[in-house]
């Protein structure tokens, strides 16, 4: 009987446990922690997103592993956790971005976009018969000429960061970022720090093909993926791998 009751809080996402917890949301956070890491670093020149996309087989086409998703010209997201769940949120983000442009003829703010994603995520912590999103996102973009970096989590709470990580090895990466982050750093240093963060979680040399890096640049106000060759150069400079 005791056991059955315990299970009831466990199963219904709309049911609080007696101590006020939503177990399904906590399990969804666990799904995020099991995913490979994504790191975000905000610099004065722009925001860097870096994601680990190590392949489970050498036969897989690397480009089919989606960790970083462009959302609009000036904004994109990196994910950790269930990629399929991330894709649904990315599609919402893309549509909200276009609706804002159609409605107001101005690029959507990164904060506004993040909150439209988290409002959607929150609905799934309060709706019966559904499950929460098993994914956390880093949302990076340029808003009114300023770089902005946000995180969304499975509870539907938005956070803004100078630098952060989601996914496996987060605690180690955060320790490194808290030690090394400097708000005055330029974009190249930001890329270096983000890669060091990924290496911290991986605990081995990084393969340039297995790392996806993108930047939201203040000057061009655009969100762009870094070519693999540039990633290789950054990894070599920091002695993190890439020279195989």
């Amino acid at each position, binding site marked *: 009987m005791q056991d059955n009751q315990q299970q009831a809080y466990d199963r219904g996402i709309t049911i609080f446990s007696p101590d006020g917890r939503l177990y399904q949301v906590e399990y969804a956070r666990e799904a995020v922690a099991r995913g490979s890491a994504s790191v975000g670093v905000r610099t004065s020149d722009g925001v860097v997103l870096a994601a680990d996309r190590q392949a489970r087989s050498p036969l897989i086409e690397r480009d089919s592993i989606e960790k970083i998703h462009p959302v609009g010209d000036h904004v994109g997201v990196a994910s950790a956790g269930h990629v399929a769940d991330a894709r649904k949120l990315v599609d919402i983000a893309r*549509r*909200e971005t276009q609706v804002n442009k*159609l409605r*107001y*003829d*101005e690029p959507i703010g990164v904060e506004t976009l993040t909150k439209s994603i988290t409002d959607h995520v929150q609905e799934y912590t309060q709706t019966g018969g559904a499950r929460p999103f098993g994914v956390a996102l880093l949302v990076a973009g340029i808003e009114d000429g300023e770089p902005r970096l946000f995180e969304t989590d499975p509870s539907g709470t938005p956070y803004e960061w100078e630098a952060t990580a989601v996914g496996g090895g987060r605690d180690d990466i955060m320790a490194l970022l808290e030690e090394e982050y400097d708000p005055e750093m330029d974009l190249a240093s930001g890329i270096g720090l983000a890669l060091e963060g990924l290496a911290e979680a991986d605990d081995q040399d990084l393969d340039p093909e297995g790392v996806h890096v993108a930047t939201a640049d203040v000057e061009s106000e655009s969100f762009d993926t870094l070519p693999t060759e540039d990633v290789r150069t950054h990894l070599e400079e920091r002695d993190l791998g890439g020279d195989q």
Partner: protein
Amino acid sequence: MKEITDPYEPELASFQDADTPDTADGDDTVAKTGTTTVGITTPDGVVIGTDRRASLGGRFVSNKSVQKVEQIHPTAALTLVGSVGGAQSFIRTLRSEASLYETRRDEPMSIHALATLAGNFARGGPFFAINPILGGVDEDGSHVYSIDPAGGVMEDDYTVTGSGMQLAHGALENQYDDDLSLEEAETLAARAVNAATERDTGSGNGLVLATVTEDGVEITHHDDVTDLL
């Protein structure tokens, strides 16, 4: 599943009878503004001038003290031109949308965004008989836009809409300058509206001036125009 907002509809309510256009144009029982409304930009802000007459079929004066300019945003105002019902509803809708936008994002809408939204609503909704001027000030400076019934949105240094528009334009065309003071722009707006009220039967009964600066919107009524000329 999350509903994606329709860019051509207000977020808070859908348009009623969007498929049955407002036929007020040919209907003598519907109050229309007739109207002359002018908007003038200056380096310090925007001046909007309107007459105060509402009429039925342009032949009977149904109200002699209509305020045809309303604040819709902390630093923007819109004129009522065309069907009174359509214009009042349009203003209520835009006012609530602008307020919601600012509350959510903690910054006011830009005037360009407000004009785009107004154009979308004019295009997507049942407001077929309106032709307002939007005037406002934001961090980029002073702006006036005319919004046409099909959703056309055009920015200009100065603009006029309403049944007296040709007359008012005649007065404005030679006297506008891009560095008028607010006081000079108020005089010019009064002259332009006065020129129309003298000859256009849809316009008359005094003047309302709205002065929009970065500090807000100030609206004043004038029974007698002559002291402003």
